[in-house]
């Protein structure tokens, strides 16, 4: 039985660049259908970058739905004063985490500028959500390098390594206790069960990558993993809530 569901990975943006137009109402509607209480949101665009209003867009969405949405800053560490902008996003704008998408910013997870921003996230007690998958700059073992360099930071590997790097994602999470795995989009329910078995239920979090991925279906995937009620409780809500509570205690 599921008491509460928090979605740790969704998108809110109106991106002409990708052609993905997803105002906050789109994810709210899907959350209502799926029974999701609260979702972490982020843009498709990176800041600093082509859309300098991206942080403001997230802040406004959270202001509009303060009980339903939690904002992350999606950052380009190579942009001008990325660290300062991120600090302002957390301290002044009320955002709660850092999102990196190495493919959209063409940047290795362990580059010097990435590490500077990750160290800042650690100082601010915010989680660092990394897109991970099968592409050249999003490989779990690459993110493992960053996790080793920044042991105080908490990393979440979105998509658990994608299609062909799930084993690598579980392996780096076994190796580094500061790595969590996010269940979104990855297509194998059995791998969620395996991850829980190998790294424990405390470091696996539910995420949907909605609205492109339907949150109801993503919930179904976790249910098909056949976790125990206690494990489900942790994966669906408790683990991510604990990470987000640390931000408030900085």
């Amino acid at each position, binding site marked *: 039985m599921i008491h509460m569901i928090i979605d740790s990975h969704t998108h809110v943006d109106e991106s002409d660049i990708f052609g993905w137009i997803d105002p906050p109402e789109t994810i709210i509607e899907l959350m209502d259908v799926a029974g999701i209480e609260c979702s972490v949101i982020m843009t498709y665009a990176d800041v600093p970058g082509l859309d300098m209003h991206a942080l403001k867009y997230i802040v406004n969405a959270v202001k509009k739905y303060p009980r339903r949405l939690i904002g992350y800053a999606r950052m380009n560490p190579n942009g001008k004063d990325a660290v300062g902008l991120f600090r302002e996003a957390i301290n002044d704008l009320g955002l709660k985490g850092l999102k990196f998408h190495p*493919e959209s910013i063409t940047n290795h997870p362990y580059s010097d500028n990435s590490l500077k921003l990750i160290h800042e996230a650690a100082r601010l007690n915010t989680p660092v959500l990394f897109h991970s998958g*099968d592409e050249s700059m999003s490989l779990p073992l690459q993110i493992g390098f960053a996790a080793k360099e920044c042991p105080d930071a908490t990393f979440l590997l979105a998509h658990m390594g994608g299609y062909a790097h799930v084993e690598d994602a579980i392996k780096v999470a076994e190796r580094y206790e500061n790595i969590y795995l996010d269940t979104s989009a990855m*297509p194998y329910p059995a791998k969620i069960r395996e991850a829980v078995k190998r790294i424990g239920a405390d470091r696996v979090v539910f995420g949907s990558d909605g609205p492109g991925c339907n949150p109801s279906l993503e919930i179904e*995937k976790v249910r098909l993993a056949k976790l125990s009620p206690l494990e489900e409780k942790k994966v669906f809500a408790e683990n991510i809530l604990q990470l987000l509570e640390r931000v408030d205690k900085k």
Partner: protein
Amino acid sequence: MSYHVPSINIIDGHVYLGHSINDYALKTEQLLASLEELKINGAVVCPVQPKDYHLKPANDLVVKAVSDFPKKLVGFCRVDPRQGEKALTELIRCRQLGLKGLLLHPWEEGYRINSEKAVQVVSKAAEMNMPILVESGYPWVSHALQVADLCGLVPNAVIMMSHGGQINISGLAQADAFAALRSHSNLYIQTSGVYRQDFLEEVIIELGSERVIFGSTFPIMDQEYELKRVLNLNITYKEKTKLLGENLLKLINSEVI
């Protein structure tokens, strides 16, 4: 989440039978049990690459399964185009034994899907009215535009791309898959592992529900979850009926299952 599918004839368009060198395995009785449990009426069964590399016995295993359960299973054969004439001979043999289509797995066998030898095999399959299922989305060998190139080189072939023509969890391969579908009307996609529901829905809106086919790639992927992926789409009942069985049955000219 409830899935109510009254009276839809559901056919899984992509299942593997046998014990793969890559360690995935499925026996006929296991498949039949899963079909029964999920209320799937039938499946297209394809050979794996077996541990000894020999595809002929793997094809024979599919022939046997189909002859044992002709109202449940439709068989596709598998050849390695790099073998040239030998591949063509095996393709013809399988056709004569009643297999209805051809599976090509450029990633596991190791060749480009638009290479000259692959084109030869696909041309022969098309000549024998066999639809071709291509394991697609794999880097270097079967990304969507390589499959589209194949469609242009063999315009009389009916070609299905697994995984929506993309194995990319950024969504950045969607544009190529769309471009491939727009440019070649003999190209279809299967649904397994397509993580963005909106991609499938947009293909249906723009290109029609005839171009999308349910296929799970069971046991590599989870048959129940892959079925739910399709059932969960925001499309009409009539469109679901097409995706879940009608489209495939038309392509394989079968009314048996």
